[in-house]
């Protein structure tokens, strides 16, 4: 396993579209690094540049000690798992997994051993003689993982590998990918547009937008303090409540007199947008807080999400399942917990300390 460095990567396609503006990433040895962003943000292009499937317009990519610019994909010693698995349809599961080893011209005994080892780890032993078309989506994905791991590559590149699975299977495979990555102590670069997947898997998350890095950090860092309004909207479900507020005496005050704890680093009278997680609001039938009206209620079993209309806008509020409020009921909304991050309305960047 190895580190991966991306330095000043810039990628423009011949038709003029710029996929990556300028990107610097340092991916540590044995790290599960997630690149997260909406479609067209440049995350897949970055991955394909690392793989060597696209040539960078400028910049440098280093895998281990080797600068790989100009090297063919086959010379970079990396493995990739594709969104559509890309299993060779004319080969059996065994031959699919043996394929990279055959390319490396390994002896037959070693090939058998490595394939058997991967098949055991991924519970693919009963399927070795089948062709990919006879497998379910999850099984196909496991074969793709097996094919990636038999060669013990320097790094794994995962291009939205779970997007094509149904929701239940996706959660299982997510756990399996994480487990596998830890067991192999593999350097893994994982591209996804699903923030839940990113939060669940990543040691670190890079949020990308329009070819630029918006934020880089550990999942909880990114969750608690999104660096920009874009990141704030992208991470978390339901998303952060973004509320226009003004710094008053020790508080952030929004329309209707809603008060929130003020974060450090703001000056009095400054106009900001406060980002409040749904769990940092609480509602009660009577008591402190501003008046709001419940617009909708989503009982999720373990918790209930209320959408409350206040003078400052529509808020999502996460409450325990025991909270019973009816739609149209008038309630009091109050901010609890830590001070929310605050954003500048024009630059859209975080301004609180």
């Amino acid at each position, binding site marked *: 396993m190895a580190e991966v460095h991306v330095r000043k990567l810039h990628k423009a396609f*011949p038709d003029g579209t710029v996929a990556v503006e300028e990107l610097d990433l340092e991916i540590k040895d044995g790290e599960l690094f997630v690149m997260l962003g909406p479609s067209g943000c440049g995350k897949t292009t970055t991955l394909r540049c690392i*793989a*060597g*499937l696209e040539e960078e317009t400028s910049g440098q990519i280093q895998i281990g000690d080797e600068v790989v610019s100009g090297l*063919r*994909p*086959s010379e*970079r010693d*990396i*493995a*990739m798992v*594709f969104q*559509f698995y*890309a299993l*060779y*349809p*004319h080969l059996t599961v065994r031959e699919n997994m043996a*394929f*990279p080893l055959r*390319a*490396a011209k390994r002896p037959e005994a070693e090939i058998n051993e490595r394939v058997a080892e991967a098949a055991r780890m991924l519970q693919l032993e009963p399927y070795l003689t089948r062709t990919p078309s006879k497998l379910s989506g999850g099984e196909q994905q496991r074969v793709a993982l097996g*094919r990636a791991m038999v*060669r013990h590559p320097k790094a794994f*590149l995962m291009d939205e590998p779970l997007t094509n699975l149904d929701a239940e299977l996706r959660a299982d495979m997510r756990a399996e990918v994480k487990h596998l990555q830890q067991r192999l102590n593999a350097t893994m670069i994982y591209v996804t547009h699903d923030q839940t997947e990113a939060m669940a898997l990543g040691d670190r998350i890079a949020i990308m937008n329009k070819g630029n890095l918006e934020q880089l950090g550990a999942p909880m860092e990114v969750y608690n303090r999104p660096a920009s309004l874009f990141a704030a909207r992208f991470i978390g479900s339901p998303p952060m409540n973004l509320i226009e507020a003004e710094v008053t005496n020790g508080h952030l005050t929004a329309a209707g007199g809603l008060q929130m704890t003020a974060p450090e680093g703001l000056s009095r009278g400054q106009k900001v947008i406060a980002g409040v997680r749904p769990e940092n609001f609480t509602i009660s039938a009577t008591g402190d807080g501003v008046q709001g009206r419940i617009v909708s209620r989503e009982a999720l079993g373990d918790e209930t999400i209320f959408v409350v209309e206040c003078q400052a806008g529509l808020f999502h509020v996460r409450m325990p399942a025991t909270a019973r409020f009816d739609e149209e009921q008038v309630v009091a909304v109050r901010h609890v917990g830590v001070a929310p991050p605050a954003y500048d309305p024009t630059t859209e960047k975080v301004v609180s300390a």
Partner: protein
Amino acid sequence: MATHIQPEGLADEGIAGETAPPPVRKERKLGSGIEIVLLALFMIVMLFPVLWMLETAIKETKDIYAVPAKVLSFEPTLQHFKNVFGENSPVLQGFKNSVIVAGFSTLIATLLGVPAAWAYSRFKLVAKKDQLFFILSTRFMPPVVVVIPLFLMFRDFGLLDTLLGLILVYSAFNLPFTIWMMKGFIDEVPAEYEEAAMLDGYSRFEAFWRVTMPLLIPGIAATAVFALIFSWNEFVFSIFLITDPDTRTAPSAIAGLIGGTTTDWGLVAASAITFAVPVLVFAFLVRKHLVAGVTLGAVRR
């Protein structure tokens, strides 16, 4: 590739095949009765010349000229076929030449066309659409238009009356077709397969050879048969560019039998049947792929 044909008159009653009741028996019967009669008539008209040819091929010469025509009341003979393959056959050399010309021109068109189609399918190229249109546009004109210029060129290069000349012309005519048809097949094979193989340690060409190629075999077979049929049947260039009886191909050799003082119609019919059989056999062998080849690309995955 199932096509759901919605019976007429049921258009507004939900989705065909799911909620619509089966079509009314009586109407269906009447409809298909007319259909069958029409199709049978059509078939008779289309097949009559072929049947007449078959019959002529096994009639003795005196029966061929009999008036009124003997339809079934004649003694069958294989003499004409023996003449086709006999020692003094005027067409046997033509068949040999046709095999060589059709075989090589198909081979050349396939060897050049498949890699070209792969490149057009996989790579970003300058003015790719224009290039492809240009390639296709060479098929817009009727071949006979270029006969005179080709004749002059061939005369200067000494290619008249040579098999090589015909092979070149047929290859050139088959190439655009091969490129377009193969591009359709290759577009259907996801590029990810090759990318995966490249990451698995193969060069781009090896990836194409080991992963895409095996998946393309049916498509190549279908395309090659089309090219083969074209080269095998081609008549105009053959008759214009070749006059030497030693190098002319079967179609012009057979045509050469007609005319003069007497025409041995039995030999003409027997030669024509011998000529048609290989194509029929080939088309039959790859009929599934032929249909797939024609319809592929019409439906997106």
